[in-house]
C-alpha cells in the first residue's frame, strides 16, 4: 500500500453549513475516494502548535478546504509553516453550482451533501495532480 502522502485539512467550520460541507468532502476523499493516498488531521492541533502535527504538515503536501473568507485552514497551515500546495474555497465550488442551497450544520440537507460530493471531486483532481507530479 502506498504511503499516505497528502493531508486534506478542512476548516473547523462550526458556525456555518459550508464548514460542514468541507468536512464531509474531506471524509469522502480520505475514507472513500483516495484512502491510500490521503489522510486528515485536526486543524486545532495546528492552532495550539502541537509539535508532532507541525512536523508532519511541514513534510507532507497539504490541501486546505475553507468554508468562509476567514480561511482558517489556509492561514493556520501557513502560520505553522506547513507545506500548503493547494487552497480550496467551498464558496468557489458553490459558485459553479449556483442552484444548490446547502443548509444544516449538524446534518447537511441533500443539496449540502451534493455540494460536498462536487467538492470532493475537485479535491481528488488536486490529489491526483500532486501524485502525478511526485
Amino acid at each position, binding site marked *: 500500500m502506498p504511503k499516505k502522502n497528502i493531508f486534506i*485539512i*478542512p*476548516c*473547523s*467550520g*462550526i*458556525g456555518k453549513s459550508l*464548514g460542514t460541507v468541507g*468536512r*464531509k468532502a*474531506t*471524509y469522502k476523499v480520505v*475514507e472513500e475516494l483516495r484512502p491510500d493516498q490521503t489522510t*486528515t*488531521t*485536526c*486543524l*486545532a*492541533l*495546528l*492552532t*495550539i502548535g*502541537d509539535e508532532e502535527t507541525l512536523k508532519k504538515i511541514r513534510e507532507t503536501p497539504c490541501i486546505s478546504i475553507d468554508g468562509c473568507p*476567514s*480561511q*482558517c*485552514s489556509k*492561514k*493556520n497551515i501557513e*502560520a505553522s509553516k506547513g507545506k500548503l500546495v493547494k487552497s480550496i474555497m467551498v464558496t468557489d465550488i458553490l459558485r459553479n453550482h449556483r442552484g444548490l442551497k446547502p443548509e444544516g*450544520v*449538524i446534518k447537511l440537507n441533500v443539496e449540502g451533501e451534493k455540494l460536498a460530493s462536487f467538492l470532493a471531486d475537485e479535491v481528488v483532481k488536486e490529489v491526483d495532480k500532486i501524485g502525478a507530479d511526485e
Partner: protein
Amino acid sequence: MGMASNKVGIVSCSGEEIPEGTISRIATRLVLEKLRPEETVTICLPLFLAGGEDERAFARVFPTITVDGCEKRCAEIGTKKYSGKPTATIVITDILKKYPQLKLKSRDDPSAEELVLAEKVAEEIAKKVDEALEQKRHPTGREE
C-alpha cells in the same frame, strides 16, 4: 462583541480526525440551536490564530466553556493561549468513562447511540452554561 451581557461562549475543538471531535461539535451545536439558543455564542477555534484581536477577545468578553474531544485539549489550550481562561471545561473522553460499553466508531456519520451521547454531552454543557450565567448574576468573588 460589545453586547455580551447574558451570553456564554462555547468553544469546541475542531476534532476532524477522531469520532470524539464529532461528538464535541454536535453537542456544541445542540446547545446553540436547541438547548440554550438565546444564551450562547460560539467561535471557530482556529480563528484565534487566523483572525485578529476581535476574535482573540472572545474569552475575555464571554464566560467561556471549552469542549474537547480528547486529552490533547486543543479547545482549552487554544482558548487559554490566545484569548483567556475558560470558565469551565469538558472533555468527551472523560464523559465516555461513564459509558464503557459505548465505542465510538464514525467521525462522519454518527450512529443513533453516538447521537444519544452527543445529547448527553449537550445537557452537561447546558448545565455549565446555567452555572456560568448564575455566577455572572451573583458573583461570589471566589477565585479558583
